[in-house]
């Protein structure tokens, strides 16, 4: 029983970070209507920034967080201005090719700059645990979950309570009407893209003390984020959060009962089952449909 609790908690902790890595993808899809295959590459970039800061100055990823997030915002902004803004009204197939190409370009850039080696950030905290009696939680994983939860809460408040956030929800529902309200689609698209990029970057830097960084690390997380987002109903932010937690728990349970080798298989299986029985996603009904 205690072991099951341990497994569930551990799954939820991972799930929180998966959710954070995925909400940006859902936001960008929902608001901009763009399927971003390069999403995971921004997680990779943030991990490399965290590693570089650590390698060069010994700073922990938490200490370099402000710099890291600022750089991710710049990366998101430039990507939007230089590439995405040009294909926003293009065919979905063209958008997919562009983001796929971007993903490969970024992977190869990382390979060129930092080689294929696995890099690790070995701060003191990496091996520390929080011992809560019957539960033992690794400290960086607990921090990752807490920060992810806080970031999700802030995103929620932003979307619900601010003019910019309300405009974002409006654009996601009906871009044509939003224009008539005097909302500049281009600006809102840019904001959503930057926020999505910063959020996945935050997930990356939170992972860096517990997960090695290498040029292809983003590819795995892109796949994971796609599964999470489809489970959550594609463009739904709360759905992506629920989906992330679910994938974390399923992965953890599968690891415990069937062995670590089956973790990925388990959430792919979950993905297929949900698509067959609830193709609109677990949080479906909301999100999804969209007028442009």
């Amino acid at each position, binding site marked *: 029983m205690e072991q099951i609790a341990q497994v569930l908690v551990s799954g939820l902790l991972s799930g929180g970070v998966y959710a954070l890595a995925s909400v940006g993808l859902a936001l960008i899809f929902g608001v901009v209507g763009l399927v971003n295959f390069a999403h995971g590459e921004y997680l990779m970039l943030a991990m490399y920034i965290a590693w570089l800061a650590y390698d060069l100055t010994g700073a922990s990823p938490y200490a370099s967080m402000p710099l890291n997030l600022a750089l991710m915002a710049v990366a998101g902004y430039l990507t939007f201005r230089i590439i995405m803004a040009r294909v926003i009204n293009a065919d979905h197939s063209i958008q997919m090719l562009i983001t796929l190409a971007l993903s490969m370009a970024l992977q190869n850039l990382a390979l060129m700059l930092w080689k294929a080696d696995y890099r690790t950030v070995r701060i003191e905290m990496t091996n520390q645990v929080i011992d809560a009696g019957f539960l033992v939680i690794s400290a960086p994983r607990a921090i990752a979950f807490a920060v992810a939860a806080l970031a999700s809460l802030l995103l929620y408040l932003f979307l619900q309570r601010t003019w910019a956030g*309300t405009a974002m929800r409006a654009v996601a529902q*009906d871009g044509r009407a939003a224009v008539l*309200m005097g909302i500049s689609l281009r600006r809102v698209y840019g904001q959503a893209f930057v926020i999505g990029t910063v959020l996945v970057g935050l997930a990356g830097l939170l992972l860096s003390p517990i997960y090695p960084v290498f040029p292809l690390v983003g590819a795995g997380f892109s796949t994971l984020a796609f599964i999470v987002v489809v489970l959550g109903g594609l463009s739904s932010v709360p759905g992506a959060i629920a989906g992330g937690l679910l994938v974390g728990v399923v992965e953890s349970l599968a690891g415990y009962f069937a062995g670590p080798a089956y973790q990925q298989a388990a959430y792919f299986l979950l993905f297929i089952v949900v698509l067959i029985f609830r193709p609109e996603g677990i949080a479906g009904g909301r999100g999804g449909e969209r007028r442009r």
Partner: protein
Amino acid sequence: MLRLRNLNAYYGGIQALRDISLDVGRGEIVAVIGANAAGKSTMLACISRAMDSFTGEISFDGRRIDGLPPDRIVDLGLVQVPEGRLLFPRLSVRENLMLGAYSRRCRAGCAERIEEVFGILPKLRERASQLAGSLSGGEAQLCAIGRGLMAAPSLIMLDEPSLGLSPIAVKEVMALVAAIREKGVSVLLVEQNARQSLRLADRAYVIENGRVAMQGAGSELLEDAVVKKAYLGL
């Protein structure tokens, strides 16, 4: 205050508007009537710059606006309530109204303005926290017009506000149009419902196949034999 001269609009190679010239004076209700696909919505899209493949001259309050982006046009007080209402279905009625005041000029006064709109449209107050997608057709149209009023327009363009409404709801909408003018807001009323809109309008234009086919005082066109036959079913 609104002035169109020789407006030509295109969808790809197809010309949807031909040399449209039209004026709306301060405090006027001007009706535009025409059959399906005549080009009425296309004309409004050009004015709001929801499309940009057009040529010709559009001025508002004496200044050219045909080069301005859509948000600047709303900022000037020229607002469109689109055909089919286009409310944000999964936002509440209150949030829909708020977004009407999105333009910088209006944000600060948003709260008072919502109260004003609730004053004119008390039904909306009851529904304030309901999702807009759950409104009936008549309520949705009132909400869409209320959302337009939130931008404090000096000219409001209504695209077929009576479309798909019950006769009672149509009456309510037409009464609202008259009330809006009483507040000093000019109205450009696009309608297929020719009888009601001609009665209400000071002047009217008939658009056929993308051209202005006729124009005159509302009462004049109501009595016109051609209009009677083609648009009033007499």
